[in-house]
């Protein structure tokens, strides 16, 4: 009998404090800290010709005003380009405070420190910046075609250009295969910008200890370890003198993996300079115009296929809008290019992307991180092939699936981690069967006909995806059992609401055989664990989960060895149940894990009753051996790392039934079904929660969310009034089913689940609306107004059966 918690819907340990209002988010800290506000550029592209602070300096409560000129070496250089890549030939990053030129609305120019935020904003209003206007570059095609440049030294606004090609097995290139294919289709797809929009924006709070000459920084970040290294480097501090802590974080979804944000350098710098606590809390408008967006792409697709709908060749050209700067490199278009392939065997493939500068907010990963665009492309392709051949859309997909006996399956490309794109496991035909049963795919035509008879338009859509999760390079876990029997688990990566405290405790309790109440978990605190990468790419459970399991196994091995000595038994005959080490089948021959922890640490001094057992006159060890044996360490603790050879590939399939209003073109989702495979589930309740949230963000992207930039680079909808995030009224009930194909790559057999829900939604909804309306849907999101206009234009062009007419 062991303590089985892995796989159970254990309730979250985070919630008691969060529902009581006792969470500790960034702005809840530092009650006495000075507040920061920024003067940000109101123009998309301009040269700064002067900064006049005369009106501002007399405001009561003002502490300091800084411009780029005031920044010291280290802080005045451009921010780091985090992920260099040979194809990113013209990578550019921003300064903490704009130096000469501003390249998007919202770029920080002046930093103000004051007694509180009200005063800091008063000061900002009294600072006058003068500009010489430069021509803004807005829109992907304007960027590549137009004469105007975002950066003077980046010709054609092209930051990166990359081609990956997988030849047909007979050696022919994809373009040749397509030219010779029995059937071909060619089309263009447009995907709009959206953004993570966590409910809590970013924020940084720093305390300089002048006596200790050390810095403690709290940041609402997805990577505290890396923020720490960046701060130490930029401020010239020894790494051990800098601590960074991610407190409770109110959502991330990708935007908080980017670092260091200008504020993450400036706030600690000012705190040290002023020897005062300093805090900056991002407001919503700042988040819209000075954090990051994602998604925007234009795709040109050519596909060649046979009579069964099998893809023989696929040729995709992508224009990717990365905004004004490229701090996160070209991860997003690389993921689009590679994950586009989904669960399919594509005969031959060529993908080319241009990653392009525009005078807009920079683009960095948002949940899904390029996959929604890739899946939109592939799934629209599958639907078009089915339409062209007059086949069922699921049959065309099935004809292209990688089969369960073909794993590991090598897609012969290089993935976002620089490693081969090799799928480890999955069962796509089984997923599709489950999905069709769940949504009632085969019964839908009758339902559609029935609705049509009542004058209603309904349609069904389907979308499949494969998601590379758990990318390296590594995460670690530390596990310590203290003499009170408590188990202290820490890992370096951070949490933004996923429930890591719960799932990591489940893993530790299961591995060690202790009650979960004895286990506490700390994440994202560099005081507890200094080596980590961060939380992104659905990697936390895979990476830290396995690292913690491995660390627990070390601890368990040590515990059994010590207990074996005490019980005069063979370690192989021992197990741990409910915090007691005992001989298998003889529970009376036992010793509490707490006592094992005491014995693991030979003592000279007794500080309590328990400790007496480990003191030098109380123990009965051999006089010929040192108290701490060679190769051993005192204490019942262990540390280990998990570093995978490559990513593990989760997968899933979604289907939706939508209804469109014949008059108003309103689009309503009647049903939404998800089949999901993330390998072995640690906590099915939390996996479902991740899926629900992902689908909701996907629905936002499919129907509502876009960044409305005008030709001058002004973001016209930079508020929750105008950027339409879904409320409860927009999200359908999500029906879920699961498949568990364990990953062979890691000890726990798990795959990531964080991003899955969002990935195929735009493709699914597009397919469903197309089915309801019999109008080609080639852009997302699609609002009622968009659909209304599409109806008009398809009527005038007589393009109701447009799909076949494009031949």
């Amino acid at each position: 009998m062991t303590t089985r918690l892995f796989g159970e819907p254990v309730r979250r340990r985070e919630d008691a404090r969060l529902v009581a209002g006792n969470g500790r988010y960034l702005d809840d800290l530092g009650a006495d800290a000075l507040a920061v506000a920024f003067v940000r550029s109101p123009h998309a592209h301009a040269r700064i010709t002067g900064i006049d602070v005369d009106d501002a300096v007399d405001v009561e409560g003002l502490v300091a005003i800084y411009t780029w000129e005031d920044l010291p070496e280290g802080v005045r250089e451009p921010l780091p380009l985090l992920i260099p890549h040979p194809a990113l030939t013209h990578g550019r990053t921003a300064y903490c405070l704009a130096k000469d030129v501003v390249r998007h609305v919202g770029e920080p120019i002046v930093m103000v420190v004051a007694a509180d935020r009200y005063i800091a904003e008063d000061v900002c209003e009294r600072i006058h910046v003068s500009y010489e206007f430069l021509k803004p570059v807005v829109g992907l095609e304007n960027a590549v075609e137009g004469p105007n440049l975002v950066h003077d030294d980046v010709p054609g606004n092209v930051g990166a250009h990359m081609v990956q090609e997988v030849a047909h097995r007979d050696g022919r290139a994809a373009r040749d295969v397509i030219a010779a294919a029995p059937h071909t289709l060619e089309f263009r797809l447009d995907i709009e910008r959206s953004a993570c929009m966590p409910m809590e924006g970013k924020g940084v709070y720093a305390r300089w200890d002048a006596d200790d000459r050390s810095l403690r920084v709290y940041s609402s970040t997805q990577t505290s370890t890396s923020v720490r290294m960046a701060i130490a480097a930029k401020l010239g501090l020894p790494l051990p003198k800098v601590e960074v802590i991610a407190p409770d974080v109110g959502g991330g979804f990708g935007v908080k993996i980017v670092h260091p944000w200008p504020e993450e350098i400036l706030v600690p710098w000012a705190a040290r300079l002023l020897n005062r606590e300093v805090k900056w809390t991002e407001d919503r408008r700042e988040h819209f115009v000075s954090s990051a967006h994602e998604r925007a792409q234009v795709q040109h697709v050519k596909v060649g296929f046979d009579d069964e709908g099998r893809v023989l060749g696929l040729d995709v050209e992508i224009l990717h809008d990365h905004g004004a700067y490229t701090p996160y490199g070209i991860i997003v278009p690389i993921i689009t290019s590679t994950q586009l392939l989904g669960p399919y065997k594509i005969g031959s493939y060529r993908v080319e992307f241009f990653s392009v500068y525009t005078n807009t907010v920079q683009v960095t990963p948002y949940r899904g991180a390029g996959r929604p665009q890739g899946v939109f492309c592939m799934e629209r392709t599958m639907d078009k092939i089915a339409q062209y051949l007059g086949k069922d859309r699921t049959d065309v997909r099935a004809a292209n699936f990688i089969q369960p006996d073909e794993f590991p399956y090598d897609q012969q490309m290089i993935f976002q981690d620089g490693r081969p794109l090799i799928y480890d496991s999955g069962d796509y035909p089984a997923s599709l069967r489950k999905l069709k049963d769940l949504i009632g795919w085969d019964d839908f035509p009758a339902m559609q006909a029935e609705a049509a008879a009542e004058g209603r338009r309904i349609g069904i859509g389907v979308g499949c995806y494969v998601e590379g999760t758990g990318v390296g390079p590594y995460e670690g876990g530390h596990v310590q059992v203290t003499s009170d029997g408590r188990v202290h688990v820490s890992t370096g990566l951070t949490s933004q609401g996923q429930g890591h405290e719960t799932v990591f405790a489940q893993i530790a309790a299961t591995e060690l055989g202790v009650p979960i109440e004895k286990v506490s978990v700390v994440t994202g605190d560099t005081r507890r664990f200094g080596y980590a990468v961060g939380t992104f790419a659905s990697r936390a459970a895979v990476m830290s989960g396995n690292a913690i399991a491995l660390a627990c196994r070390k601890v368990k091995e040590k515990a059994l060895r010590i207990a074996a000595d005490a019980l005069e038994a063979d370690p192989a005959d021992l197990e741990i149940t409910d915090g007691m080490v005992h001989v298998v089948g003889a529970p009376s021959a036992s010793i509490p894990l707490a006592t094992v922890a005491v014995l693991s640490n030979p003592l000279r001094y007794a500080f309590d009753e328990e400790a007496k057992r480990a003191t030098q006159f109380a123990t009965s060890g051999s006089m010929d051996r040192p108290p701490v044996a060679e190769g051993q360490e005192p204490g019942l603790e262990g540390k280990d790392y998990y570093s995978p050879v490559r990513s593990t590939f989760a997968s899933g399939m979604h289907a939706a039934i939508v209804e469109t209003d014949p008059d108003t073109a309103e689009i309503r989702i009647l049903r939404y079904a998800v089949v999901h495979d993330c390998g072995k589930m640690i906590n099915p309740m939390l996996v479902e929660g991740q899926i629900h949230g992902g689908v909701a963000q996907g629905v936002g992207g499919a129907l509502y969310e876009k960044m409305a930039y005008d030709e001058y680079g002004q973001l016209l909808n930079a508020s929750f009034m105008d950027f339409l995030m879904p409320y409860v009224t927009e999200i359908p009930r999500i029906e879920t089913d699961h498949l568990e194909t364990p990953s062979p790559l890691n000890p726990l057999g798990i795959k990531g689940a964080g991003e899955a829900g969002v990935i195929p939604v735009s493709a699914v909804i597009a397919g469903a609306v197309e089915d309801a309306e019999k109008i080609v849907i080639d852009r997302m999101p699609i609002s009622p107004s968009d659909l209304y206009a599409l109806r008009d234009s398809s009527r005038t062009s007589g393009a109701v059966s447009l799909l076949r007419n494009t031949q």
Partner: protein
Amino acid sequence: MHDVTLVVNGVPRHARVPARRLLSDFLRHDIGLTGTHVGCEHGVCGACTVLLDGRPVRACLTFAVSVAGHEVTTVEGLADGDRLSPVQRAFAECHGLQCGFCTPGFLTTVTAFLRENPAPADDEVVEAVAGNLCRCTGYQNIVKSVHRAAELMAEEGP
């Protein structure tokens, strides 16, 4: 500057603040009750919802000085001592929260709603929480939590 006293969670709380001090900032920064969160500062997201004389209001659209003398209930005031309220327990039980940032606004809104409508139908629940944004949960478990809270309240009585 104005002397403002509010009865917050049953206790008179005083601070001397400028007329422009938002109720959300008064609660968070002047009297240190940081459970009320600010998600947009323009009244759309509902994270800052508190109960003003028992009715939900947006604390980010309310000046502290304008509600002097009134009773305010924040998320910190929902529990009965250490015993979480049925609404709080239901959200934890049904996984009605993830990052937890929007949660205080949902909890206060739902608390007021269930007082008026202790046995709501599904569409009434949806309507009740339709003014609060959540970016994590997809709302399904929030709706479930509200129904569960109603059940708990019915089981436990007034």
